[in-house]
């Protein structure tokens, strides 16, 4: 499973999958990640020695796989994961980035953070307990953040004698949840992270399970479903003007393709100004490309000399985004100081920064039951609800459901400069 075979050959054209794991100390999440890293040989001998040494000093007799993922000193002391940590491993097929987040209710904000860049989410269910409040919360957040693929691992199968009927009962129970969730695909795997059953190696103890292992699921999950390939979106990040003799008249717009496929010759509109032009060239270092798609970083040149700067968006004329100052967003509050209704904040969306006022809160979502109820109270930390935002200048946006990159925003407190809230435009 390591990248040992033909590293120079195989490794150069691997794909990248970003996934998130949510769970608490009790459901074996850290052990599962430790297992994935260990079995795919992403853990090195000196890391292994350090963990062995630490386990022994703490009076444990076996190596605690979960220690591989517990990074900061304060976490080790408390024995909990307090923040999002990123882990890396690779197989000959793919490189993986894990956003590892804690699962307690007070850490909703961390789960939201980890989910924002993920293309798949692993949810762990303890086979002994079945679906809990925490399972529902994790599923809901993954669904709200539009992670396209959900992988449900029924863990600790070793503690229920690898019993198929227990696994099937959990699957059946899960069906009642599915109507409230919004995923492209949901897959189920019965595992024991502790013993490694069906994680990397197929388990001999569960012959009744005919599906593939968790690692095989990760290797075959669709990595493109997170990107929008239909609506051409190019937020301008930075204007490149070399001012030297060879490139005297060069004026390029640097940025990332956040939606659709762009070609030279495409009809485009610059928003919010509404000027029309044609793509003259799409440049990368010392060369040009014939097409550009998410998530490429490119420099675009237009046929006309227009006044364009950071915060503007170049869009394809065949599918226009919304432009407006009245925004409705599902907001998750991230800061210990609660939201100030009627208060003014700085809003960032794509490369644009504007002032805004949080006018009204319309609802509150119970992340445990997935119920949305009317509420006009201001949100506190870790709460999620619908908020009406008025911006000082127009935003160029899509709904979050249509495009995660042009439909997301953050709210910054003007006094502290902290990121206090994050929103998904509805």
């Amino acid at each position, binding site marked *: 499973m*390591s990248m*040992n075979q033909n*590293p*120079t050959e195989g*490794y*150069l*054209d691997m*794909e*990248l999958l970003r996934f998130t794991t949510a769970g608490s100390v009790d459901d074996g999440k850290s052990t599962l990640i430790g297992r994935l890293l260990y079995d795919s040989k992403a853990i*090195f*001998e*000196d890391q292994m020695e350090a963990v062995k040494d*630490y386990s022994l000093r703490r009076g444990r007799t076996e190596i605690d796989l979960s220690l591989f993922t517990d*990074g*900061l*000193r*304060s976490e080790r002391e408390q024995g909990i994961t307090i*923040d*999002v*940590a*990123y*882990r*890396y491993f*690779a197989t000959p097929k*793919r*490189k993986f980035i894990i956003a590892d987040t804690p699962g307690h209710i007070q850490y909703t*904000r961390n789960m*939201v*953070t980890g989910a*924002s860049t993920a293309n798949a989410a692993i949810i762990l269910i303890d086979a002994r307990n079945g679906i809990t409040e925490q399972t529902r919360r994790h599923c809901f957040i993954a669904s709200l953040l539009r992670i396209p693929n959900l992988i449900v691992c029924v863990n600790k199968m070793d503690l229920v004698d690898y019993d198929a009927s227990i696994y099937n009962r959990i699957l059946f129970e899960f069906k009642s949840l599915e109507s409230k969730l919004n995923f492209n695909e949901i897959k189920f795997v019965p595992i024991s992270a502790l013993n490694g059953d069906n994680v990397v190696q197929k388990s001999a103890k569960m012959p009744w399970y005919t599906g593939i292992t968790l690692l095989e699921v990760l290797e075959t999950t669709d*990595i*493109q479903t997170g*990107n929008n*390939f239909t609506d051409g979106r190019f937020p301008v*990040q*930075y204007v*490149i003007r*070399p*001012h*030297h003799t060879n490139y005297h008249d*060069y004026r390029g717009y*640097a940025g*990332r393709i956040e939606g659709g*496929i762009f070609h030279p010759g495409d009809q485009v509109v610059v928003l919010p100004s509404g000027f029309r032009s044609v793509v003259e060239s799409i*440049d990368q*270092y010392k060369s040009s490309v014939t097409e550009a798609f998410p*998530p*490429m*970083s490119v*420099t675009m040149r237009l046929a006309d000399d227009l006044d364009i700067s950071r915060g503007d968006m170049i869009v394809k004329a065949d599918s226009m985004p919304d432009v407006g100052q009245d925004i409705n967003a599902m907001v998750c509050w*991230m800061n210990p100081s609660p939201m100030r209704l009627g208060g003014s904040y700085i809003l960032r*969306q794509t490369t644009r920064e504007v002032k805004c006022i949080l006018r009204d809160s319309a609802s509150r979502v119970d992340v445990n039951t997935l119920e949305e109820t009317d509420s006009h109270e201001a949100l506190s930390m870790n709460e999620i609800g619908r908020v009406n935002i008025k911006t000082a200048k127009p935003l160029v946006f899509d709904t979050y459901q249509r495009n*995660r*990159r042009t439909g*997301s925003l*953050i709210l910054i407190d003007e006094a502290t*400069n*902290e*990121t206090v809230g*994050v929103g998904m435009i509805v």
Partner: protein
Amino acid sequence: MSNFNLTHLQELEAESIYILREVAAQFERPVLLFSGGKDSIVLVHLSLKAFWPAPVPFPLLHIDTGHNFPETLEYRDKLVRQTGTTLIVGSVEESIRQGRVVDEKGVNASRNVLQTTTLLDAIAAHKFDAAIGGARRDEEKARAKERFFSHRDEFGQWDPKNQRPELWNIFNGRKRLGEHFRVFPISNWTEMDVWQYILLEKIEMPSLYFTHRRLVFQRDGVWLADAPFMAKFPDEKVVEMDVRCRTIGDVTCTGVTLSHANSVEDIVNEIAATRITERGGRYDDRRSDAAMEDRKREGYF
């Protein structure tokens, strides 16, 4: 849709270029921390790509401990000439002369910790508001939680329990006067990714990374390069071996590995087969279990 697929290296490159452009757009006086190691060399390469055909819009800052491999300085000066970038050097020797720091004593003395003061002084003197570094999250436990945009207070300190949330690709670089940011564009790269990228992009590397004969001695299982300023125990015998550096830093703390790797391809194959992390040879991390976290809190790279 299968035509619209980037390889993992293309995707990592696109992400890093995006971050570098965010730095240029959000900050007034950014600087790139250049150590002479492979990660900062890749950062310079990515910066050239991010702003082409315009020049790189920030200078390079090298913190010189005075205990450098001469090859590092040679490579550095050549790179600066070839890329047309500006170089600023912060000198630890100078900080010692000014009495800002005191050299460590004894056999395990290293100027690694002293660099922090020189770095923070340089940041203050030049009013830099963003320092771009080549740290990667896979290097070390404390770094696994570091943000791309990492806020530092007016004392240059990092507060790991109170980091700003970082979602999607929206980066908040707002700060008060006197505060600054550390930015890590290659956070998501692994050691393997870095070498594969060097191979793919044919980036010229310092000779220290390739096999060469060198006078070395062993301490706690780590091979260290001999130099006039390296204090040794009587039983530490200096021998000549074929070695290469896996990381490049100050001579006092950079372990070397026995290796015959002669090309970038050899290095990639060697890393694929190896079972020790690159920082396993870093003497500075061995000081304690949380050595890196403690140094980072104080303002280390």
